[in-house]
């Protein structure tokens, strides 16, 4: 149960800054994800927290204590790697017991803890096998087990599910969530998959080019993204972004004027409007402000469909239920659901309203 605080961490490789003045606090026992596309620095941040790499500037604190100069072992963290990093020349039992051996845990206790962990993860029948004899899912569990057996202060996960097939990934995701509820230890989880981050974590931090763009609950990040990158990164299909002009209480989008209901009346200028696909309504009732659009493509998914629209030269994607009959080429009215819209500065991409 450890609070992890990252303060002003910068990590430089020669001229390249992989991390730039990162400030982040992970509460004790929290499950927090670090999300972003590849190269954003999330793995580097994890390594710095783990003690595998040294920050060029800044500190890392565990429960207020500066651990920046401590080795991973001294910080008492466990890491689950994307490649599992199981020792090929050791049996599963020896892999699980290795960290305990290094800590000079007495043999009886070691054996007990290894067995307990193996039973917990349902790999107790594999203890004498070598990693190369195991399936991907089994290897992943051994990697998990090697972390769990240590009872560390902090669990660090570096894209542990990326190498699993889709179905296993879903199963293991659920197991990880259950594990967190059971162990109540601080989990810091790195992934490029925003769905994973959204479903697993209590809070997530979105990174880009070494900077933390936003930290918040999945709800916060989804509903009120801090900038256009976060807006389009989180959520699938991505948030629709349309350039528009706000003037007094009126919104000018693609040559069409709308009453800007729900948007701040005092603002004046060019904006980017962010609309979630599910906030767009097709063929709304008569009272709603709506705009004409043309359907360009319909993607049926079963429980819902994605409808691609052309609205005054802008491409939009709407999410509709299964009972809305739409055909490509159709002209219809679309309600933009401005009440839930986000406004962004077209130059900086940052969010405009609070």
């Amino acid at each position, binding site marked *: 149960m450890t609070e992890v605080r990252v303060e002003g961490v910068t990590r430089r490789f020669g001229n390249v800054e992989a991390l730039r003045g990162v400030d982040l606090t992970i509460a004790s026992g929290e499950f927090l994800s670090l999300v972003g596309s590849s190269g954003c620095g999330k793995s580097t941040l994890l390594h710095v927290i783990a003690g595998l790499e040294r920050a060029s500037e800044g500190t890392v604190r565990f429960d207020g204590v500066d651990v920046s100069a401590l080795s991973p072992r001294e910080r008492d963290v*466990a890491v689950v790697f994307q490649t599992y990093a199981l*020792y090929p*020349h050791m049996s599963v039992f020896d892999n699980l017991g290795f*960290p305990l051996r*290094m800590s000079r845990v007495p043999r009886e206790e070691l054996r007990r803890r290894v067995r307990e962990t193996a039973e917990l993860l349902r790999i107790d029948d594999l203890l004498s096998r070598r990693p190369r004899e195991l399936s991907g899912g089994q290897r992943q569990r051994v990697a998990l087990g090697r972390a769990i057996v*240590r009872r560390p202060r902090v669990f660090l996960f570096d894209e542990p599910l990326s190498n699993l097939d889709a179905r296993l990934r879903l199963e293991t995701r659920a197991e990880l969530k259950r594990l967190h509820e059971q162990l109540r230890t601080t989990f810091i989880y790195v992934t490029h998959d925003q769905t994973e981050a959204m479903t697993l974590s209590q809070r997530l931090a979105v990174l880009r080019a070494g900077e933390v763009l936003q930290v918040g609950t999945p709800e916060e990040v989804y509903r009120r993204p801090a900038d256009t990158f976060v807006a389009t990164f989180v959520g699938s299909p991505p948030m629709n972004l349309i350039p528009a002009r706000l003037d007094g209480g009126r919104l000018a989008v693609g040559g069409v004027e709308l009453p800007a209901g729900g948007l701040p009346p005092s603002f004046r200028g060019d904006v980017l409007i962010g609309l979630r696909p599910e906030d767009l309504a097709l063929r709304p009732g008569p009272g709603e402000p709506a705009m004409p659009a043309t359907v360009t493509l319909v993607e049926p998914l079963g429980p819902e469909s994605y409808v691609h629209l052309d609205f005054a030269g802008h491409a939009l994607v709407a999410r509709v239920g299964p009972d809305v009959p739409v055909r490509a080429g159709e002209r219809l009215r679309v309600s933009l659901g401005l009440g839930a819209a986000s406004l962004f500065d077209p130059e900086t991409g940052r969010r405009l309203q609070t």
Partner: protein
Amino acid sequence: MIRRAALWGAMLLVLAWSLGPFLWQGLTSLKPTGELSRLPPILPTAPTLDHYRGVFEGRPFARYLLNSAAVAGGTTLLALAVGSLAAFALARLPVPGRRLILGLFLSITMFPPIATVSPLYLGVRALGLRDTLFALIVVDTTFALPLAVWVLTGFFREIPEDLHRAARVDGCTPFQAFRRVHLPLAAPGLFATGILVFIAAWNELLFALTFTATDRSRTVPVALALFPGLHEVPWGEIAAASVIVTIPLVVLVLLFQRRIVSGLLSGAVK
């Protein structure tokens, strides 16, 4: 069809070219002395082991073999120990000036051995280590190190970096990680390197010639080089001695051909 035949023909030619001289030496070693000075016959009419006996009489050839084994074995162990440690560090640990160090190792291979011989000779004599195997082992190890380090660094680099990270997280000091994780996984590379170093040390001539003075520490290459008597050259015995020395090496090569090749290639393909 013709291509197959041509291929086989070429293969036989290669075998003859590579092994022919040895075969001839073997035949020579079995010929009675009288027949040595006459050609034909190609094959010995009355094969004899006299020459083999002669090799061991009049000189402590067994002692030479033992010395060679000691030098080659000692060099291999020392070179592997020192070399693997250095190679691991160069492959996986932060080492300031790594490129410079690797470059230094490489440049050592450019030294003409003859240049270092006289200062080393003077040094060895000053330390009173003349005519000992110890000096030879140390020198052979040093000159084997560049090759050993280059080859072993390649093998250590192939071990995934995450394994080292996992070892660190699990609480290993760098040396523990080396001993428990990297060394076992680099075993094939160590073996290949060991063979290469053994062969090189066994065959070494110049330093052995310079540092050994008496039969006490003489190695086989030196003995073979100094074989001829003052008047009569004992070709039969030379042939027999050559065969004795060649056979273990042939066996070594046959058994470990694949590893030798992998070791050589790993070092050269940078």
